[in-house]
C-alpha cells in the first residue's frame, strides 16, 4: 500500500515536472520568439494593421466598423450615415459582461438557424432598408439585385469587407450624397475591388474602411 502510494506520488511528480518544463518551452520561449520575430519583421501587421488618415488612426484594415449617425434622443439603434459606404449587418456583436471596466467589442455571430423567425424578420427588414436607402431619383434598386452579404451578419461581426455587388448598388446613393459623378464613384469602387487571391482563393471583396477613406479624399477635392 505504502509502496503504491509512493509510486503514484513519483508518477505525478514526473507529470508535474514534464508539464512545467514543457510550459517553459511552449508557453514562454515559443510565444516570445514568435513575438520577437513578428515585431521585428512585420510590426504593422503584428500590431493590428492600423490605418491612418489625415495623420490619425482611423481603425484597422482588418476590422469592420459602423458608419452611423450619432444617436439621437430616444433612439436605441443609430441610423446609418448614408454619406458613406455601409458594411454588413453585425447582429452577433456583443459588449463585454465581465471585466467591465473595459469596453471591449466581443466578436461573434447571431447563430440563428435558417428557419429562425427572428432571422427571417431581420433579413426581410435589412433587404427593405437596402432597397430604400440605395434607390435614388433615377436609379431603382430591385430586391433581387441585393446580394446575400448585404442582409446577413458575418461570422465575426467584424467583417471588414463587402461583396463588389453590394458596393455597386451603393454607388448612386454615394454619388448623390457627396455631390460626385456616378462614373467617378464607380471608378473608385472598381479600384478598391480585390479579386480572388491567385485567381481562385476566397471571394472578390471590397474593404469598406479603405473605400471610405478614399471617398473622403475624393469628396474633399470635390
Amino acid at each position, binding site marked *: 500500500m505504502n509502496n503504491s502510494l509512493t509510486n503514484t506520488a513519483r508518477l505525478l511528480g514526473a507529470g508535474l515536472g514534464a508539464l512545467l518544463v514543457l510550459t517553459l*518551452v*511552449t508557453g514562454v520561449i515559443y510565444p516570445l520568439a514568435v513575438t520577437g520575430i513578428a515585431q521585428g519583421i512585420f510590426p504593422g501587421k503584428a500590431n493590428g494593421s492600423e490605418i491612418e488618415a489625415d495623420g490619425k*488612426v482611423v481603425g484597422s484594415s482588418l476590422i469592420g466598423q459602423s458608419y452611423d449617425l450619432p444617436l439621437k434622443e430616444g433612439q436605441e439603434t443609430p441610423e446609418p450615415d448614408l454619406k458613406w459606404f455601409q458594411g454588413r449587418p453585425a447582429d452577433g456583436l456583443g459588449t463585454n459582461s465581465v*471585466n467591465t*471596466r473595459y469596453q471591449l467589442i466581443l466578436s461573434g455571430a447571431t*447563430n440563428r438557424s*435558417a428557419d429562425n423567425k427572428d432571422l427571417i424578420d431581420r433579413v426581410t427588414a435589412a433587404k427593405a432598408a437596402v432597397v430604400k436607402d440605395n434607390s435614388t431619383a433615377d436609379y431603382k434598386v430591385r430586391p433581387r439585385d441585393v446580394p446575400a452579404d448585404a442582409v446577413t451578419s458575418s461570422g465575426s461581426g467584424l467583417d471588414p469587407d463587402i461583396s463588389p455587388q453590394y458596393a455597386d448598388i451603393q454607388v448612386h446613393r454615394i454619388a448623390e450624397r457627396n455631390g460626385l459623378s456616378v462614373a467617378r464613384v464607380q471608378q473608385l469602387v472598381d479600384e478598391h475591388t480585390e479579386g480572388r487571391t491567385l485567381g481562385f482563393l476566397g*471571394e472578390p471583396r471590397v474593404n469598406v474602411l479603405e473605400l471610405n477613406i478614399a471617398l473622403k479624399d475624393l469628396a474633399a477635392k470635390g
Partner: protein
Amino acid sequence: MGPVLAGVLQLLALITALALAHVPLGTYMARVYSCDRHWRVEKWIYKGIGADPDTQMRWPAYLRGVLAFSAVGVLFLYLLQRLQGHLPGSLGFRAIDPDQAFNTAASFVTNTNWQSYYGEQTMGHVVQTAGLAVQNFVSAAVGIAVAVALVRGFARSRTGELGNFWSDLVRGTVRILLPLALVAAIVLVACGAVQNFSGIHEVGQFMGGSQQWNGGAVASQEAIKELGTNGGGYFNANSAHPFENPTPFTNIFEIFLLLVIPLALTRTFGLMVGSVRQGYAILATMATIWVGFTALMMWTEFAHHGPALELAGGAYEGKEVRFGVGSSSIFAVATTLTSTGAVDSFHSSFTGLGGGITMLGMMLGEIAPGGTGSGLYGMLIMAVIAVFIAGLMVGRTPEYLGKKIGTREIKFAACYILITPALVVVLTAAAMALPTPGDSMTNSGAHGFSEILYAYTSASNNNGSAFAGLNADTQWFNSSLGVAMLLGRFLPMVFVLAMAGSLAEQRPVPATAGTLRTEKPLFTGLLVGAILIITGLTYFPALALGPLAEGLAS
C-alpha cells in the same frame, strides 16, 4: 469564374498541398518515433522530468504516464484560471468561476477546446499563452504518442513493450509540433494575424470616437491551434475573426495545417508496420470520406435551402465575405472530421443538412482523418472491426497486419466504439429531460434540439465546435460537458493501449492465400462501409429528430 468552380479549385489545391507534404512529413515522424538518439535539449527536459527516456513501458505503465500527465495538466490549468486575478500580466482580468474553470481545463487537456467563455473578455495573456496554448501542444503530443504506441503494438512481437511515454511526449512536442508551429505562426503574422503583448488597444474610428480590442499572442496560438487539431480560439469568433484568419490564403493555410499531421500519420504507420501500402489503404479510407463529405457540404451550402437563406439569396449568415461559401464549407468539414473544432463560419446558421453534415462528421468518431493521433488510433480500431466483420462473412479467424484479432481484441474494440455514443445519447437525453438546460437554447424546434445534440457530440468526441447559440456557461453544461470530454478522451485511450499491449505480446501469423489483403482497395471499400453503417445505425434516430427534420422541412 463562378464561386462553385472557385470552391472546387480550392479543394483541389488543398489536396495537392497535402499530397506534397504527406511523404516527407510522414517519413520524418516515423524517424522521430523510431530513433535511438536524444537531442541535447531533450536530455535537459528528461532531467527536469526525472524520467529515463530509454525505459520500455508495458501498456499499464504507458497508460499511467498518460493519465498522470493529463491529471496534472487539468489541475494546473484549473488553478491558473482560478488565480488569474492575482497573476501579473493578465490585464487585470478576474478569476474564472469554478465550474467554467473546470470545463475549460478539461476541454484543453482533452484536445477538445470547447469554450464556454468569450476569449477576448475573459482570458488574460498568461492563461492564454502559458496555460491554454501549452495544452494545445501537449494534448496533441499525447494523442500522437498513444497512436504510436498502438502502431508499435502491431509492429512488435512477443514483447509487451510499447515504448516510453515521456520520450514520445517530448519528441512529439519538440521535434514535430514546435518547429512546424513556429513556421506557421510567422506565415500567419506575415498575412496579418496579430502577435503582441501590448494589452488592450484603444483605436480611433473613421466616424470619430474609438474602439477597444484585446491583442495578444494570437498568431503563435493560432498556428498550434490548427496544427494540433485543438480549435480553441483566442477570440470568441475563432477563425472567423480577422485577427486570427485575415485573408483567403490564411483560410486555406489553416485548413491545411489542421489536416496535415493526421493524414501524414498514415505514412508513419505504414513505415512502422513495414508496409507503406497498408498506410495508403488507411489514407484512402480517410480521403474518401473527407472528399465525399466536402462535396456534400458544398452542394447543400451553395443550394442554400431554408427560409432565411433563400430570402437573403445565399448562405452568408455567419460567413465572412473574404472566404465565401466554398472555402467556408471546406473548413467546416475539415474541422469536424478532425478533432479541431475551430470555425471560420458559424455552423448553427448553415443549412439544416449542412449542420447535419458537421454533426455526422464528429459522430464518425473523428477518424477521417481525425485528431492528431486520435484519428489514426480511432481508424485502426475501425479497421479491426472491419477485419472482424470480413472474418465472420468467410468463417475465418480475422487477422490484421499479421496479428490475430481474437476475443480480447474485439472486446477492447467494441468497448472503444461504444463509449462515445453512450455519452452522447445518455447526456443529450438527460439534458432534454431536465427542466432547465432547454433555457439555454437560442433557436426553437428541431434546431434547438440540434444545439444540445451538437454540444454533447462535440464534447464526447473531443471536437470543440458548437451550434454556438447554446448558452453553455451554466453549471449544468459546464459540468456535464466537462465530464463528457474527460471520459470521451481517456476511456477510449485505456482500450487502445490495452489492445496495443495484447497485440505486442502475440507472435505474428504468416500470411496465407486465405488472408484478407488489407492493403487493397476492396478493404478500403469495406472499411468505409463499416464506418458509415456503424455510425449510421447508432445515430440515425438522434439525427432524424434534429438536422434531418430541419433539412427536409426546407
